């Protein structure tokens, strides 16, 4: 109820929200496959590989926070924690595993 009132007073532009989440998802997809390349070449296996992905996404989130959101994420994201720091992390996981296994097979095996 309170949230609804807040939205009436300060309306949110839906096209901007869509644009921002698309930018974040694009960055996530590109960097996820990049981290997969690195993890496979380093020869990481099981949990360290996933930990590498999580650390990488954290660094990329920090970069988006500093460069694209200029340190004010609430101006660009409705829920900064979910949309910026946690946005599309699981969605990028599949492309991470794909390139991880590919480069592990190419370089290490």
């Amino acid at each position, binding site marked *: 109820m309170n949230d609804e009132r807040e939205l009436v007073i300060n309306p949110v532009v839906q096209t901007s929200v869509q644009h921002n989440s698309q930018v974040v998802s694009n960055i996530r997809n590109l960097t996820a496959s990049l981290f997969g390349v690195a993890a496979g070449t380093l020869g990481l296996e099981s949990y360290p590989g996933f930990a590498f992905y999580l650390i990488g996404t954290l660094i990329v989130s920090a970069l988006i926070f500093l460069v694209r959101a200029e340190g004010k994420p609430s101006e660009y994201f409705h829920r900064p924690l979910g949309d910026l720091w946690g946005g599309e992390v699981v969605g990028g996981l599949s492309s991470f595993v794909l390139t991880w296994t590919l480069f592990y097979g190419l*370089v290490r095996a």
Partner: protein
Amino acid sequence: MAFGGAALNIIGALFLAHAIYSAHEHTTTFPTSPLPLDITIELLVSVLLLSTGIVFSSPALKPIQWAQWSGKISREGQQPEAGKKTREGEQILGDGDMFAFLGLDGYGEGRRGFWDVRGKRKEYVGWVKAGGRA
């Protein structure tokens, strides 16, 4: 910004290719020994460079609060969308003023600005009291 991002991407891709090639050569020559530290460092630095480049070359975010979004539009005017072109190579315009059709800023057809109702009423009362002649 976009130029710096592209430069970072190219440098990062070169380092990444070199690091992966080195790792491949190393593992084919010494299959059991771990990866040397310099290849690991080169790999991590190249990944960092590439992800920084990707973030720098991504399109700018748009403010989601209506007030800030429309304020930006009225300050900067209608801007072409960065990086988006039609097939003929023409620029695609981004979001414009939502209320331009009202014609409040003087040009185009539309409604004039609001007039001072109380002032007009007072003027009318004065005119009636003065005898109703113009």
